[in-house]
């Protein structure tokens, strides 16, 4: 009796094993890929587009794209990774480039090594660099934050400047132009928040520098680029060419309402610039101003993010295959997201596509995306390190005293460096 039961059991087991093997061989890829991301106007619809394209070829693959606020994605990721419970984690997650090394170094083994899975030579250099740790590459590069100087041609013409006058300029020249604009039109040249580190980052990266040196040591007080950036910040404020804003919406409103003549920021702002339809045809884009020091170039970057696959996720290999097929292979996909969302990818083969060379009515017929993809190649590669946000906080804590002239730039940098070292030496 017992023997017969045993034989039946063995037969059943064998049957199951054999059938599962043949099953796996005979069917196409299937499973559900879960994704965490932020921004319902940018990353989410772009991911949905990518998912649709993949699902067309692989109908058995479904997607669950969860939309969260950026801070919430980061918070959830930290909590789940720190607790060691992988059940709550998605297959793919979006991580901001400035934070990439922080996650990679804080949670070793948490992200899938993609070095041999993706052809990284097809992507912009600086982008691959920031997701590399110990010679291994952990992400799939996504959008670029290549920066540019967006400006109102009507205001600048009134002040007596033509397009050529704005390309390849220094920040000193920018301030000089700004004063003229203020004088002739009464408009501010630029708007930003006094505690906003965005421009500081653009300035520094244009000079190939960061808050840290290549080895990750704090580099504030002897950092020429940073010193020059401080001077420029103060000069912009002192010269009165700035409209001071607080927070994102005021900042966007400043250029949408025509209160400022220019915006210097990442290419991802295009959608917001274009939101003001009345000013169509009055905008153009020039190269990013550079710092007045040796080695600085007229190209930089602000922001941008990339996709990462969780090592212990349920459908890891499927997720990698998906990213590889769409984000590292579908040129048509990149044309579509560029046209629909103004998303400039860092996948180089896509940049010879039709959408990239289109003339844009809004920007007075300028081929803006051809220009931006040219500038991408000139962005200096730097190591953002793992303490960018700490450094930002240290610097902008002393900044009010610099604006008011209470302390010199040298003393401020000294103070910030001391504070930053205190904070990260633990």
């Amino acid at each position, binding site marked *: 009796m017992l023997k017969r039961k045993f034989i039946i059991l063995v037969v059943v087991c064998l049957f199951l094993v054999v059938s599962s093997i043949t099953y796996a061989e005979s069917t196409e890829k299937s499973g559900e890929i879960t994704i965490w991301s932020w921004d319902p106007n940018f990353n989410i619809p772009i991911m949905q587009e990518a998912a649709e394209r993949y699902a067309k070829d692989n109908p058995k693959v479904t997607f669950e794209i969860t939309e969260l606020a950026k801070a919430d994605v*980061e918070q959830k990721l930290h909590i789940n990774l720190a607790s060691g419970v992988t059940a709550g984690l998605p297959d793919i997650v979006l991580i901001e480039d400035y934070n990439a090394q922080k996650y990679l170094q804080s949670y070793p083994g948490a992200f899938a090594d993609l070095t041999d899975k993706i052809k990284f030579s097809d992507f912009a250099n600086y982008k691959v660099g920031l997701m590399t740790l110990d010679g291994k590459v952990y992400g799939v590069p996504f959008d670029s934050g290549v920066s540019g100087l967006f400006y109102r041609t009507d205001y600048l013409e009134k002040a007596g400047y033509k397009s050529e006058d704005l390309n390849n300029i220094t920040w000193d020249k920018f301030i000089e132009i700004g004063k003229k604009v203020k004088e002739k039109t009464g408009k501010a040249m630029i708007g930003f928040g006094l*505690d906003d580190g965005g421009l500081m980052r653009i300035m520094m990266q244009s000079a190939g520098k960061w808050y840290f040196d290549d080895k990750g040591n704090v580099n504030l007080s002897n950092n020429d680029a940073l010193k020059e950036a401080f001077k420029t910040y103060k000069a912009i404020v002192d010269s009165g060419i700035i409209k001071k804003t607080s927070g994102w919406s005021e900042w966007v409103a400043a250029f949408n309402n025509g209160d400022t003549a220019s915006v210097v920021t990442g290419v991802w702002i295009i959608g917001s610039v274009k939101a003001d339809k009345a000013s169509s045809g009055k905008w153009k884009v020039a190269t990013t101003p550079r710092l007045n020091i040796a080695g600085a170039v007229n190209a930089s970057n602000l922001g941008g993010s990339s996709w990462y696959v969780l090592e212990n996720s349920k459908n890891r290999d499927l997720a990698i295959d998906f990213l590889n097929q769409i984000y590292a292979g579908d040129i048509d996909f990149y044309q579509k997201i560029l046209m629909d969302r103004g998303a400039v990818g860092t996948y180089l083969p896509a940049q010879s596509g039709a959408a990239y060379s289109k003339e844009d009515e809004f920007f007075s017929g300028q081929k803006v995306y051809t220009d931006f993809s040219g500038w991408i190649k000139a962005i200096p590669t730097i190591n953002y390190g793992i303490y960018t946000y700490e450094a930002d906080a240290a610097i902008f*804590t002393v900044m009010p005293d610099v604006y008011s002239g209470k302390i010199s730039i040298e003393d401020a940098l000294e103070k910030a460096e001391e504070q930053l070292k205190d904070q990260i030496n633990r």
Partner: protein
Amino acid sequence: MTEKGISRSFIKPRDKYGWLFISLALILLGVLLFYPIVYSLYLSTMSSKGIVQKFVGFGNYVKLFQDSMFILALKNTLTFFLIQVPIMLFLALILATILNDKTIKYRGLFRTAFFLPAVTSLIAYTILFKMMFSLDGFINGVLLNVHIINSPIPWLLDPFWAKVTLIIGLTWRWTGYNMIFYLSALQNIPEEIYEAAKIDGANKVKQFFYITIPLLKPLILFTAIMSTIGTLQLFDEPMNLSQGGVTSATIGPGNSLLTLSVYVYNLCFKYMPNFGYAATVSYAIVLIVALLSIIQFKLMGDKK
């Protein structure tokens, strides 16, 4: 049967059932409250980069005194505590006294109006304040129009004014809440005391200082301690007043709104995640709250 006999035969099984009934609550308390408290104490002896941890013993506590960012957060928090709490409690007392006066018309309406801010969402009101206090916002518009000021006040752009804005916001949100406590206590003060005082020639101001305040002392102590805890844990308001920007680097201009709780959040989620050090700062908050509460008890409590 003696009384002792009764208790022996009855209380024992009752004890058993008692323990049984509260066991669920006790287990939940243990798992969700006591365990985290003990675990975070253990955590505060670690220094971590995400899951890469190392034991540092009291190192984190020593570091607190060298960390200028922590000291700045502590300074800011204490500033809010020392300025905002007294203003708010005093205002609440005055409002409660006025609204307790039976001769005032539409008392219910005024009471509701003053209490209403306390039911609004912290985030909603902070965002509203941020809009109203922007450089070309409503407040500056009004002040400019009635010629109180000549140039707009940089409410959220200057370290000093940012603090002022936060204090105004906090006072608006919480005064009515404290007022309700005082109002309920005032109704327990017998009318005769005031009548007697009146006959003795004490005016309203004297009545307020010599009758109302001394009789409300226990409640003032209670609200003071509650407000102390609330201020020390201040989080939503500074976070939302400062959030935004392309990459807003600090909490308010020059980190002027950085509070201890926001610092704990930053240590976990914005900066390199150091849960160990964050736990240390949390313990520092607990210690400070305890210390301030003891001082308040000593200052205001009855000397029995």
